């Protein structure tokens, strides 16, 4: 049978289209406003929030300790040495920034494609982007060894007249990542301005009124303002789209421009971007699934969202699979001895376990199961998949960085890589830091864009004059 039977009792399925509904029926402008505003304006912070904040704060403290020790002792406390001179710092940098990409994809690219379902998840996906970029940005700065000289990366007129080398991909990175961070913050803030207006008007306490009033810059919802706002949002989305594609491309240049077997490939830019979106959607799921449960947002972040995110992961997962396939193919087809060895060493060398972990986590588990709608709408399963893919994507970066380096051209200089406890502490610490920022966001800022949700409610449709008169 070609069409699937839709149970009429299932109110989650829209009878007209047979699709899962974007948001649950029976909501009014006021009910969704109240629902979202209450999370922030309630004087009662849930105990679960405090519990999680304590754990995350512990993680952030670990980061502080690790950084303090790093600044005292230098990067020698990490496992980086010759031949593996790039270790966890670069792996984590690429991993975190990749996670950020889904936020921009959801907020910008899906906006341009007029995907109404994105509206409920765009705000916290953007927040995720900003916090992930904050974690990512930390690593290159602490990796330079003398972070207090980090400003040397910028083209500033110093007294010693030294200027940066603009032909280096590492320099391009500075501009790509700083632009990405700035535009993400601006896009996020501009998106929140009308919602801050709502919060200002709904707040009971004087302090909250002032706080959100200042943040709202006096937004009053004039349609003239709205039209300029819409134009600006579309333009920002249009600008963020090439930006997000360029950021991971530029990061892949850090590798691809180097003449090193395993790095020097032209497939890197598209495959890095697809991998970034893949891991980013996994992270959105990791955050959205507990969040919707904890704050009872099932009517706004519905199974349709989870389902759609699963589909995006399926597509990007296959692009990533193509990237892996191409790497293997080129190792053979290039007839380059070093390239072939690098690949053989990756898969069957002493660190081959990392390669097979990545294949299992990124390809085997998700790409065989995400085909099924039943599994895509199974919340527990999707949470599991999101963790699996995040792990897999971290291992992908591990494989690219470490297994390309640890056995280079001269067997006498071969080495290995074994992360130290400070490597792990810094990595776990950034997760704590990320969670702290995210918890603060959830508590103090509107995590679902109210003005955008109002737009997709059925009441927002303006009926033509004739039908109104006929109904009277």
């Amino acid at each position: 049978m070609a069409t699937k039977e839709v149970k009429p009792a299932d109110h989650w399925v829209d009878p007209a289209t047979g699709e899962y509904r974007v948001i649950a029926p029976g909501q009014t402008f006021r009910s969704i406003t109240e629902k979202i505003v209450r999370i922030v304006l309630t004087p009662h912070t849930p105990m679960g929030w405090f519990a999680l904040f304590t754990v995350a704060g512990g993680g952030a403290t670990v980061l502080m300790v690790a950084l303090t020790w790093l600044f005292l002792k230098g990067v020698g406390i990490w496992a980086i040495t010759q031949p593996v001179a790039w270790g966890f710092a670069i792996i984590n940098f690429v991993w975190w920034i990749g996670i950020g990409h889904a936020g921009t994809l959801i907020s910008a690219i899906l906006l341009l494609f007029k995907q109404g379902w994105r509206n409920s998840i765009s705000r916290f996906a953007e927040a995720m982007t900003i916090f992930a970029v904050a974690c990512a940005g930390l690593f290159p700065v602490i990796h330079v060894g003398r972070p207090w000289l980090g400003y040397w990366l910028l083209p500033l007129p110093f007294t010693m007249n030294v200027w940066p080398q603009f032909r280096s991909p590492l320099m391009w990175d500075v501009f790509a990542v700083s632009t990405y961070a700035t535009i993400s913050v601006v896009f996020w803030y501009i998106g929140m301005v009308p919602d801050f207006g709502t919060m200002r008007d709904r707040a009971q306490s004087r302090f909250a009124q002032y706080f959100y009033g200042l943040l709202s810059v006096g937004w009053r919802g004039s349609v003239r303002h709205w039209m300029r706002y819409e134009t600006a949002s579309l333009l920002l989305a249009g600008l963020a789209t090439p930006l997000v594609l360029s950021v991971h491309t530029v990061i892949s240049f850090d590798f691809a421009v180097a003449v090193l077997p395993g790095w020097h490939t032209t497939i890197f830019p598209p495959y890095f971007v697809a991998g970034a979106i893949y891991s980013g959607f996994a992270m959105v799921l990791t955050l959205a699934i507990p969040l919707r449960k904890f704050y009872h947002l099932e009517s706004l972040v519905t199974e349709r969202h989870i389902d759609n995110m699963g589909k995006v992961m399926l597509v990007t997962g296959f692009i990533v699979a193509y990237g892996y396939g191409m790497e293997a193919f080129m190792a053979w087809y290039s007839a380059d001895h070093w390239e072939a060895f690098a690949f053989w060493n990756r898969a069957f060398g002493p660190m081959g376990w990392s390669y097979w972990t990545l294949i299992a986590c990124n390809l085997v588990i998700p790409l065989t199961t995400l085909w099924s709608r039943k599994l895509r709408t199974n919340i527990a399963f999707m949470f599991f998949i999101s963790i699996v893919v995040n792990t897999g994507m971290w291992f992908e970066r591990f494989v690219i960085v470490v297994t390309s380096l640890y056995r280079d051209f001269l067997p006498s200089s071969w080495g290995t890589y074994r992360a130290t406890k400070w490597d792990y502490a810094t990595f776990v610490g950034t997760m704590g830091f990320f969670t702290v920022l995210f918890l603060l966001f959830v508590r103090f800022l509107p995590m679902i864009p109210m003005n955008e949700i109002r737009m997709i409610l059925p009441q927002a449709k303006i009926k033509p004059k004739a039908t109104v008169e006929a109904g009277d």
Partner: protein
Amino acid sequence: MPAREGVYGLLAEFETPGDLVRAAQQARQDGWRRMDCYTPYPVEEAAEAIGFHRNKVPLLTLIGGLMGGSAMFLLQAWVSILAYPLNIAGRPMYSWPAFIVPTYEWTILFAGLSAAFGMLALNGLPSLYHPLFNAPNFRDGATTDKFFLCLEALDPKFDRAETKAYLEKFKPNSVVEVEY
């Protein structure tokens, strides 16, 4: 600068965006010009109804992007050719393809900043005070679920009693006078 006392305008509150758009269209047809609609989310039809068709945000964005991109390209060229020339294996100083990435990024950066801040500037924001906030029903509704049409006192057609009666014809929830 308009006088800061007296009446700012008359504010009609509607329940649905459709009612608002029909009222705004009619008012525009009847010759009203100094008016504005206030909605909790963008209602394009309302902007059309009051005759607001195009805005200058795209122009600002274009100018910002061009300025950012050319500034970055010139900076790189100046640094690489004049200020700090580095001879690396005899490669040309003016290696423009290598300058494209930062140029591209700064084009986007300044275009984006111009779009965001240009939008706020054209809107006259930040402006934390506005007479409309004095209206008793405005703050409860305009950012939540009500749709407002304001006919402003600066319009030559404005007359307190007549305009109030005129607005009542559209069957709004209420019509209130907004003081400065």
